[in-house]
C-alpha cells in the first residue's frame, strides 16, 4: 500500500505544477500583445477590433477569462485555434507521433552511447580516453543545435549525398535529426554517469567487494554501475520530456512536422489559444514523465519509497 500512497502523492503534486504552468501560460500570452490587431491587419477600424474582441471574449475582465481558462484546462479542453478553428488538443496530438519518434530514438541513442562512455571514463579516470570523452561532451553540450544540424546537412546531404536533408520518410530521413537531437542528451548522460560512478567507485562497499575477492568486472558492473544508474534515470526522463514537448530547433531545421514546428507556427501567428495549449501540453507531458520517473525510481530503489 506504500506504493499506492507514493503514486497518489506524486499525482497530486503534478496537478499543482500543472496549475502554475497554466497560470504562467495565461499571463505570458496576455502580455505578448493583442491578437486581434494581428488578425485583422493594420488597416482595421476600431469598431472591427472591438467586435472581434467581443466575439473572442477578450473584452471581459482578466479574472473571468483566467478562471474560464483554468476551468477548461482541468476539463481537458485546450480551446480552438484562432486561425484554423481546429481543436487545439487534437491539432497537438496529431503532431505527437512525429515528435515521439524523434525524441525516443534520440534518447535511446543517448542512453546507448552515454552510459557506456560515462562508465568507461569513470573506470579510467584521468586517462586520455577520459579526457577525450569529457572534452567531447562539453563540445556536444555547447555547440548550438541549429548549427550542428546545418553542418550535418551540409556534409552528409549536400556534399556526400548519403542522407536526405529532412522531411518525414523512411529510416534514412531519421538519421540526421535523431543524431542532432541526441547530441545534448548523450553528453548529459555521459557526464552524469561518469560523475556518479567516480564517486560510487570510492564508496567503502566497492573496496569491501574487492577485499572479498570479487572479480573486477563484477565489482564494476554489477555493484558500481548498478548503483550509479539511479540519478541517470532522472536525467533520461527529463531529457525525454524536453525533446518531446518541443525539439523546436531540430524540427525547424529538418522540416519535421512535430509539436515543435507547430509551436513555431503558433508563435509566428500570435495564435494565443494554441500557444497556451502548447504550454499546458508541454507542462503536462513534463509532469507525466516526472511521475513515471519517480515511480520507476521508487520501484528500483526501495530506500526512496520509505522516505515518503
Amino acid at each position, binding site marked *: 500500500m506504500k506504493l499506492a500512497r507514493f503514486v497518489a502523492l506524486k499525482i497530486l503534486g503534478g496537478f499543482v505544477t500543472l496549475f502554475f504552468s497554466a497560470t504562467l501560460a495565461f499571463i505570458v500570452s496576455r502580455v505578448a500583445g493583442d491578437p486581434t490587431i494581428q488578425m485583422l491587419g493594420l488597416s482595421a477600424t476600431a469598431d472591427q477590433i472591438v467586435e472581434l474582441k467581443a466575439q473572442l471574449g477578450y473584452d471581459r475582465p482578466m479574472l473571468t477569462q483566467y478562471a474560464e481558462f483554468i476551468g477548461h484546462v482541468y476539463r481537458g479542453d485546450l480551446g480552438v485555434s484562432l486561425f484554423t478553428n481546429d481543436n487545439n488538443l487534437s491539432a497537438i496530438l496529431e503532431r505527437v507521433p512525429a515528435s515521439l519518434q524523434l525524441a525516443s530514438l534520440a534518447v535511446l541513442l543517448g542512453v546507448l552511447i552515454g552510459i557506456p562512455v560515462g562508465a568507461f571514463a569513470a573506470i579510467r579516470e584521468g586517462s586520455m580516453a577520459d579526457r577525450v570523452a569529457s572534452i567531447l561532451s562539453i563540445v556536444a553540450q555547447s555547440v548550438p543545435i541549429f548549427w550542428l544540424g546545418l553542418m550535418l546537412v551540409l556534409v552528409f546531404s549536400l556534399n556526400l549525398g548519403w542522407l536526405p536533408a529532412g522531411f518525414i520518410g523512411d529510416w534514412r530521413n531519421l538519421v540526421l535529426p535523431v543524431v542532432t537531437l541526441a547530441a545534448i542528451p548523450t553528453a548529459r548522460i555521459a557526464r552524469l554517469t561518469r560523475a556518479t560512478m567516480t564517486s560510487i567507485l570510492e564508496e567503502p562497499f566497492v*573496496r569491501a567487494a574487492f577485499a572479498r575477492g570479487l572479480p573486477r568486472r563484477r565489482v564494476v558492473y554489477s555493484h558500481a554501475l548498478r548503483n550509479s544508474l539511479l540519478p541517470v534515470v532522472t536525467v533520461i526522463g527529463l531529457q525525454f520530456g524536453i525533446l518531446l514537448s518541443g525539439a523546436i530547433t531540430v524540427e525547424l531545421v529538418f522540416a519535421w512536422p512535430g509539436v515543435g514546428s507547430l509551436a513555431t507556427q503558433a508563435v509566428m501567428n500570435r495564435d494565443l489559444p494554441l500557444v497556451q495549449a502548447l504550454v499546458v501540453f508541454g507542462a503536462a507531458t513534463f509532469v507525466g514523465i516526472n511521475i513515471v520517473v519517480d515511480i520507476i525510481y521508487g520501484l528500483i530503489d526501495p530506500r526512496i519509497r520509505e522516505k515518503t
Partner: protein
Amino acid sequence: MQQILSISNLIVVFTTRRGIRREAFRAIDDVSVQIAAGEIVGLVGESGSGKTTLALAACGVGKVTSGSVRAAGHEFSQLRGAARRAAHADVQMVFQDPMVSLDPRQRIGDGLDELRQVHPNRTSRFTNEQLMERVGLAPDILRRIPSQVSGGQAQRVSITRATMLQPKLLVADEPTSGLDATVQDQILRLFRWFREAEGLAILFVSHNLAVVRQLCDRALVMRQGKIVEQGDPDALFENPIHEYTRQLVGAVPGKHARLAISSQ
C-alpha cells in the same frame, strides 16, 4: 606457532600533489607485525596514525611501497588475477561502517550467495539460514536490503560474510565504533566465539582502549606510522611506558580513565 600474518619492514608512502610540488607522506614507517593462529591482536592509535593503512595492507587491498606482507601464506603483491582473488578468501575484512560497506541495493542473502559463487572451491558448511542463526539473526533478514536493517544487524551480516568461507585471518577496522554499548558487547562476543570455534586470527583495529583490553590477547600502539609500544593489553594500559600510550590512556572518556576501563 604458525604465523598467520607476518608483516616485515612495511613502508607505505603516499604522494600528494600540491600544485606542481609532489609531497611524500609516510603513512607506515618500517612496521613489522606477527599474528599467530587463533590470536586476537589489537591495534590502537589516534586517527591518522596509520591504523587503517596497515589494516588494508594486511588484507591485500592496500598500498605496499616496500617490505613484505604475508597473510595466510599469501604474498598478495606477488599474486595477480584469479590467484589473487582466491587468496582473498583466506583473509577477509570487516569495515567500520557496515551500512556503507554493503551494496545498498543488494539483498543480504544475495550478497552471501555471490560470495559462494565467486569462491566456488571454498564451501561453507552452513546454509544462509544457518549462518544467520549462528550470529543471532532471524532468517527474514536475508530478504532485506542494508537500509532495512539496524547498524548492529548490518555489522553481524558483515561478520557473517567475512567468516562464512572460513578464512584464516580476519581484519576488523573499527567494527564497533558506530554501535551502542550493548550491541558492541554482542559483536565482541561474536569475535571471541569465532576465535574459539574456528581458530580465527583477528587483527582488531580500534581507537577504543577499553574494547581492545576486553577482547585482545596483545595490543600494538601506533603513532605516526610506527609501532611505539606493544604487549599485554592489561600491562600496557596499567603501566604505559611510552608517553603517547600514556596520553591515549588519559584520553579515555569518563571522569577517571582507570575506572572507565576496569568497569568494562
